[in-house]
């Protein structure tokens, strides 16, 4: 929507309670700590546990963000929950050549069968990583690691302080899932 800028617009898809809003917030805080300009906000709709939800990030490394509306044409879409793929059109408005990051066990060929080849795909089995490290399949921080692999919007170390502030005793485990997801995410150009 806005040309001539370093603006990156990200849309998170999750289900209520999975922490999509928290992911968006952690990312914006990390970007702001790096001196960048950023916004994180939830979709302004009813909030119900288990129902599909979206959250948004805007990050601009050079200038203040002067937009107060939902993101309609994101550069990046992140899907926390594979069961959403058949429920929500997650690629709606995704810019041609944009990045689609999915928590899934499927491979590129299977995902391309459903979503075509218009997007740069990044896939990770976040459920397994989260289950093994956190003991629960809450994948919001795991998917931050996948994002950084697909697009280095912030430095990984910048996430450490926001994660510590948010998760306190379980911060270290959440930092570990970010690192492991970064290592295991497969990115197809």
């Amino acid at each position, binding site marked *: *929507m*806005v040309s001539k800028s370093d603006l990156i617009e990200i849309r998170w898809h999750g289900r209520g309670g999975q922490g999509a809003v928290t992911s968006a917030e952690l990312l914006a805080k990390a970007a702001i700590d790096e001196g960048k300009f*950023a916004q994180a906000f939830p979709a302004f709709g009813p909030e119900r546990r288990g129902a599909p939800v979206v959250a948004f990030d805007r990050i601009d490394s050079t200038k203040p963000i*002067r937009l107060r509306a939902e993101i309609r044409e994101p550069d990046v879409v992140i899907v926390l929950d594979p069961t959403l793929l058949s429920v929500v059109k997650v690629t709606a408005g995704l810019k041609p050549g944009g990045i689609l990051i999915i928590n899934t066990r499927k491979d590129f060929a299977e995902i391309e069968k459903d979503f075509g080849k218009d997007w740069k795909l990044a896939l990770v089995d976040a459920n397994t990583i989260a289950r093994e490290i956190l003991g629960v399949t809450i994948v919001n921080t795991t998917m931050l690691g996948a994002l950084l692999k697909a697009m280095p919007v912030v430095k990984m170390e910048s996430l450490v302080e926001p994660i510590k502030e948010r998760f306190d005793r379980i911060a270290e485990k959440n930092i570990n899932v970010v690192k492991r997801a970064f290592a295991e995410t497969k990115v197809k150009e």
Partner: protein
Amino acid sequence: MGKRVGIEVSLAIAEAAKMADVDVIAAYPITPQTHIVEHMAEIVANGDLDAEYIPVESEHSAMSACLGSSATGARTFTATAGQGLELMHEVLYVASAMRLPIVMAVANRALSSPLNVWGDQSDLMAVRDVGWIQIICENGQEAFDHTICSFRIAEDNRVLLPVMVHCDGFYLTHVVEPIEFPTQEEVTNFIPKFKYPLPLDTSKPVSMGCFAPTFIYTEAKKAQEVNILNSKKIIQEHWDAFGKAFGRYYHPVESYRTEGAKTLLLTLGSFGETAMTAVDKMRDEGKSVGLLKLRLWRPFPYQELRKAVGNAENLIVVDRALSFGGCGGPAYSEVRSALYSEKNHPKVVGFVAGLGGRDITVTEFENMVKRAPQIANTGAENEYEMFGVRE
């Protein structure tokens, strides 16, 4: 040196009230204000602020408790939204008439029915005439700054009026964004604890807000009106002092790229930022468009507005509230009225847009600029329309 923090705007407002070292908070939670008062309660419960948090059973009680606490000279803060502001409506008049320097953050929201909790300025417009100073914020930094600065304005002995700091629900309150925090020392120096001139005090009894029969009521109201009108220059004085102390300067009407602009948009609140981006885009395309942002809603800045409008040919006022059966959106009606006596006033066109939290994008501001001349030239009975209605 302060620090730059990525924080949800609601929490930043609560942090501002904490840095203002408020003595009493009386509030009732309501979306989209909830995070402000939750965080305020947390701050007090954690012992990070020596204050009384009064958990009341309604907004009517919240404002009533604020009256009592403020009348004793305690620095008093509250926050509300939408229906909550409506429920405290009658008490708002008492606060201003009794000259109580309460500061209240309002997370602007739509009014029922149908139930809608999202960003809208219908609540703001419904309290237009309650005698409070009213400041409308465009982003999180302004919400933080005006929460702090408003104590200094409210508590000035020449003013002694309550202040509402309006922040669009969700569009501001629920966004994490960068906010510059000053140090505690800087804030304390800027708003030292004040002494209310005539507080409730059992050792020196006073009577406040008592009975006024016909022979004196008009004079009391005239005094109140003179008081709020006179506050305008004092508000600017304190905003200038704020600018000197913190580097961010505020004015009753802000102009953006208005030089030589034939068409001006005028917005209130969070519309302003998206409209700035729209103006940038239109200017790049060679269109003669600028933007005015109304920051001070009460007292209304007539002179500043007239000056800012200058020689523009078209003025488009965008309201996020509707005046049912009236002469257009509330801000539109007032702006048009303020310009009527000017010899060369612009054609004023009004749009009511973004009700109940509906997004207004850059493209939609561009469409308003395209649509406005058509409305202006037809000379319709009411030169405004509800924008983007599906019919």
